[in-house]
């Protein structure tokens, strides 16, 4: 090759290299610039782990620093998010902005706080606990902080941003509460709490409370287990007594009696006779035609009690169904909340009806004493139990309204409960401690009701419809 040609080839190469290098420098600086903008102005894909982690890292670039803080009334409040807590929590694969939805903006400040209910259905697990704490914000229990506050105007219990000495505290740690241990309940449920919580941790409602209240499908307190046990023994005893009788000439084998009996029931249900049976169910059992024929005032007394319980039971069953099928719906949320206008009014009206019915029945039994009425001991027991349960129900409700400091515009829907709370407020004792005893008194009474069901007068709730159904042809 000629030297001249070599030289010019080299020159061309050098120029090309220069251009390339210049271009690279230019483009890399543009890329850097772009990435600097994109640090913030980038829509991360929060459906994928890459987007979530890069979003977390972006927040961490400031919030991991132990020195990150906010000056609040001359106190340095740490804003350091501790990865050792956060990465152990179940939210480790959730981006910060998925909970703190309105914080990624300027000014860098949130108005809504953390939004749990965007992902979690309210009654996700533990429906018994959550339904009772409907005005408590999620983070008040689920964040590991000792300080809670009651917002009376908003009717909410939330995490406090200050401690008992009113000094600001940091909530940036992201340490979650271990809810499998009951100790966290004492954060509110202690002797001198300011958030309107009873001083004791009360057990969950039992499914037997369904007769009047929405309640989860669990046994609840052991006393209900005992009551259900006694009731079961009584029912088995009654059933075995019934099956001692002859069924279609069969005297000995219970298996055969059951077979014959069930055959009769089946053949009645799937035949034309179902229509007179349904007629009996509607007129005699639901509308209580026989009692009405007997005496109008008797029907009225009985209906005051019967329909109130029936309606309450129907409502709590419907609430349970709705809460299972569509927990996030507004209707389910309203029905589960016992302070909501409809539920509170409904409960108070039906409660008043039951009380009126019991009072009228007592008046008839012990004052006017019509000739056809024979009052036995079991009649008195049944009336006293039902009357006391309802009365204590109102007292418990009044105490709860008083203790929890529910604002009048909310509490007035429960007109009896609110009146009761005003009445109780005149007595200056520590109602927060009394509430637990009142609650237990009401619950024990109901447990007694359940246990007593198969033995005394209350047995008629099952036996009367049954005997009406068995004798449906006679009218």
């Amino acid at each position, binding site marked *: 090759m000629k030297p001249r040609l070599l030289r010019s080839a080299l020159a061309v190469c050098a120029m090309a290299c220069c251009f390339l290098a210049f271009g690279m420098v230019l483009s890399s600086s543009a890329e850097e610039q772009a990435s600097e903008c994109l640090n913030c102005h980038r829509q991360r894909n929060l459906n994928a782990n890459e987007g979530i982690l890069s979003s977390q890292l972006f927040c961490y670039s400031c919030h991991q620093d132990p020195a990150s803080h906010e000056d609040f009334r001359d106190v340095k409040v740490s804003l350091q998010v501790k990865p050792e807590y956060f990465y152990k929590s179940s939210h480790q694969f959730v981006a910060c902005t998925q909970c703190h939805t309105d914080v990624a903006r300027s000014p860098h400040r949130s108005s809504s706080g953390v939004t749990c209910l965007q992902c979690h259905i309210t009654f996700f697990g533990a429906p018994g606990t959550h339904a009772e704490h409907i005005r408590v914000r999620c983070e008040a229990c689920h964040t590991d902080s000792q300080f809670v506050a009651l917002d009376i105007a908003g009717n909410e219990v939330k995490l406090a941003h200050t401690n008992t000495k009113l000094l600001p505290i940091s909530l940036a740690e992201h340490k979650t509460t271990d809810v499998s241990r009951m100790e966290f309940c004492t954060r509110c449920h202690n002797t001198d709490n300011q958030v309107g919580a009873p001083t004791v941790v009360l057990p969950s409602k039992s499914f037997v409370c369904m007769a009047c209240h929405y309640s989860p499908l669990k046994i609840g307190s052991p006393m209900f287990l005992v009551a259900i046990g006694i009731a079961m023994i009584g029912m088995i005893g009654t059933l075995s007594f019934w099956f001692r009788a002859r069924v279609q000439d069969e005297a000995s084998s219970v298996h055969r009696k059951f077979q014959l009996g*069930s055959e009769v029931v*089946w053949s009645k249900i*799937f035949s034309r006779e179902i229509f007179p049976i349904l007629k009996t169910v509607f007129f005699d059992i639901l509308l209580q035609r026989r009692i009405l024929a007997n005496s109008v005032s008797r029907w009225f007394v009985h209906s005051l009690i019967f329909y109130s319980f029936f309606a309450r039971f129907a409502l709590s069953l419907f609430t349970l169904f709705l809460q299972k*099928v*569509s927990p996030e719906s507004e209707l389910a949320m309203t029905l589960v909340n016992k302070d909501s206008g409809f539920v509170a009014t409904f409960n108070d009206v039906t409660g008043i009806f039951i009380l009126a019915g019991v009072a009228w029945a007592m008046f008839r039994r012990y004052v006017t004493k019509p000739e056809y009425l024979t009052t036995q001991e079991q009649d008195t027991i049944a009336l006293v139990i039902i009357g006391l349960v309802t009365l204590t129900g109102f007292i418990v409700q009044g105490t709860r309204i008083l203790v929890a400091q529910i604002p009048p515009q909310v509490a007035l829907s429960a007109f009896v409960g609110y009146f009761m709370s005003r009445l109780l407020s005149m007595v200056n004792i520590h109602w927060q401690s009394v509430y637990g005893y009142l609650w237990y008194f009401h619950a024990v009474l109901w447990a007694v009701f359940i246990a007593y069901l198969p033995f005394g007068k209350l047995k008629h709730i099952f036996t009367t419809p049954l005997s009406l159904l068995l004798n449906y042809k006679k009218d």
Partner: protein
Amino acid sequence: MANQTIRQETFRRFSVLQRAVHLTVMFAFIGIGLTGFSMAFSSMAPARAFAWSLGGVESVRYLHRVFAVTLYLCVVTEVVWLIYFKFLLKGNLFGPHSIFFTKQDLLYFRDHMGYILALRNEPPPFERFAWWEKLDYWTLFIGMQTMGLTGLLLWFPEFFSRFVPGYFINLAQVLHFDEAILAVLYKFFIHTTVRHFRPEVYPGDWTIFTGKTTKEKMMRTHPGEWARLNASAQIVPRGER
């Protein structure tokens, strides 16, 4: 008109428990099929409309599980009955009245195929349950176990992935779907056709609902059982109308 009807001698074929379980399984199966397929084919408009009418996919999922638990409770009822039958009634699990497959069923199956292929002149003398009736029962019974297991894996994936690798959840999803198609095809087409659309019982075989069968039907479809009944000379017609 009533006087002109001939009163047929009837026999009890299914107990009340069997009728009740069948009725429950029937409705729960329809329910679980509808809810399940409306989730599996969620991209299709009819499935979405159905899910919407039930209040969204959450409630479809919930109802699917309610039906699943109901179906499995029926399986549990059958097992409890089996234990009761064996140990308290001292029954024979592999006798002629049993739903269990025995060696005799193989022979009957061979003879039945021979009859269908015109190699034999008469069908075999089936006992209380013929081989296809047993097959009907056991496909559902065993299917419930596998559907239940894969269904549980899909219901509690976090719990099960403590013990099995994660791809088991994907496997469960595939198997649950495939077997659902198999079960629905079998029950809605083969079972329904064989039981209810045969010319001699069309439009439906009511025996499983009323529990009663007639003498004529018993002689025709279960000659073995009929012969045994006569041989033991315990003809106690029950539940005659």
